[in-house]
């Protein structure tokens, strides 16, 4: 076992990693493809952060944009007002994201399923409204721009998109490692117990409250940090973008679910599907008729869910079982 993976899996991961490291050098470092890859990596990381709560704790959150937006605003406002490097800002972003996660955990502790989803949705919307109305702090609906600075690692700004790619890749790897670490740890065991049967878990002495809060806070911290990544990549955002239900909350959940909720590779697969698919649809159809591209995207989503409601990973496992059944003849 290498790092807790079977040798076959480890080889696979190493190969994928190698490809991921080499790939960006084969394409235009300031072009379109690498930008899509960056977004893919970022959203995969976000999906993975969500996965900690949605997959391991089985709490479907539709309000993760709250932590993301808080992170983006924290680091950017610190940068604008105090000239603080976004890396330090990111630490603050993570802290605030974690605090927000803690705050929302308290009233939603005992909620399950749809109720939890709706409560978190409301929380995300609360943040969006605050972002829009507290203009003196956030700039309001007009949004904020990251001040133009000379490209440097210290200030997290680059001329080419290439450095962003590696930073996003690193972020994804870090978040995935954290996910796997939690999954395999004692906390992971407890989360699994909670997932299976909350009441039974309580009976055997699992402190469900503390465990759930832990998962939420970790997830919130990570989302906050990723918000900083987004801000430094896009250079501009407004409350509707970073606190948006459709643009962030639903999207990150969708990515994890389409890929395979609760699995380490799920969000990665999900992002690899959702992000390029939407872009391809836009590229192919948006000029022809208003709404066609989005329609195609929505239809594809429905098809994917209908074919395998539990996502690509489960689909893959189904295919394996079918193949195995055939091979054993």
């Amino acid at each position: 076992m290498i790092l807790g993976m079977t040798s076959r899996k480890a080889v696979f991961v190493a190969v994928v990693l190698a490809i991921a490291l080499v790939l960006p050098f084969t394409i235009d470092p300031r072009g379109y493809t690498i930008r899509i890859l960056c977004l893919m990596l970022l959203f995969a990381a976000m999906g993975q952060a969500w996965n900690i709560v949605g997959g391991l704790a089985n709490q479907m959150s539709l309000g993760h944009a709250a932590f993301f937006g808080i992170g983006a605003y924290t680091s950017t406002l610190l940068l604008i007002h105090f000239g603080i490097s976004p890396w330090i800002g990111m630490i603050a972003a993570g802290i605030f994201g974690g605090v927000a996660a803690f705050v929302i955990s308290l009233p939603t502790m005992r909620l399950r399923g749809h109720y939890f989803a709706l409560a978190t949705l409301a929380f995300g919307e609360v943040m969006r409204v605050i972002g829009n109305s507290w203009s003196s702090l956030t700039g309001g609906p007009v949004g904020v721009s990251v001040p133009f600075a000379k490209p440097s690692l210290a200030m997290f700004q680059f001329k080419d998109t290439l450095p962003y790619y590696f930073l996003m890749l690193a972020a994804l790897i870090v978040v995935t490692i954290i996910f796997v670490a939690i999954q395999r740890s004692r906390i992971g065991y407890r989360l699994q117990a909670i997932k299976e049967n909350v009441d039974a878990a309580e009976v055997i002495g699992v402190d469900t409250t503390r465990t759930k809060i832990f998962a939420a806070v970790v997830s919130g911290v990570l989302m906050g940090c990723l918000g900083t990544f987004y801000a430094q990549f896009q250079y501009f955002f407004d409350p509707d973008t970073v606190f948006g239900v459709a643009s962030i909350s639903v999207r990150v959940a969708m990515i994890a679910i389409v890929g395979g909720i609760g699995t380490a590779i799920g969000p990665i697969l999900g992002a690899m599907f959702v992000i390029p698919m939407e872009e391809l649809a836009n590229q192919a159809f948006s000029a022809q008729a208003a709404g066609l591209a989005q329609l195609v995207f929505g239809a594809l989503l429905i098809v994917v869910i209908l074919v395998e409601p539990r996502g690509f990973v489960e689909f893959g496992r189904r295919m394996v079982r079918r193949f195995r059944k055939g091979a054993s003849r």
Partner: protein
Amino acid sequence: MAIIQAILDGLMIGGVYAVISIGLTLVFGVMGIVNFAQAEFLMLGMFVAYYAWAWLGLDPLLAAPLAFAVVFVLGALVHQVMIRRVLKAPAVAQIFLTVGLLIVLENAALLMFGSSFRSVSTPYQTSALQLGSLFISVPYLLAFLMSVASGAALWLFMRTSWFGRAMRATAQDPMAARLLGINADAMHRLAFALGVALTAFGGAVILPYLTVSPTVGGQFVVLMFTVVVLGGLGSVAGAVVGGLSVGVIQSLSALAFPIQLQNLVLFVVFIGVLALRPEGLLGGSR
């Protein structure tokens, strides 16, 4: 006086919110599925009513039953093709199927009807009844009355008709209902079709004072969810209470807080209810 006006306005619009949201809670009560695309059926109902007005000269209030019928059929179709298949799937898959449906419906409408905002002109649009210093907007009042009528009709249907009782039985205890010979799948289809049709009915009824466009659904999504959660997911009477409450809260909050924050007040109430009494004011069936 301002408070009375606010409460009055809140009740009238709350009645409309109730009718729009009953469908959502009905679907959840019978099937356990939260239909995120519910507001899109509102939009479709509005479009049916709009075209009934544009092509046939029908007042939207009269076209509301037509909107109901058209969307009922559509709802049955949607259930047959999609919703039915995710009944046993995890909640996450159910939610995302309806999200996909939302995207499809909104953009299909965009393709079919174009992006313009359409508004109807009715003779009573700019009228209001005046009682002393109170104003009662006529379109609101008519919408409210239609909502009450449809709400009463639904109540009667659920209480007295065989289908209504069969649906309630399926919601209460699917196994027992099946043992009694009730086809659960058919009941689900009925519940879903009925639910979205009611929302469409509500849409037609508010067309006189709102405009319709493919994206109008988005304005109501959070509102609808607040209503059903407040009243209790699954409880039809709860949707009524929730709708009226939301209307009044929204209206009263404008007196104390900036109007821009009216949704904030609603959300805080929403989260508060969920934290303190998740089953809602009248809930408990699920």
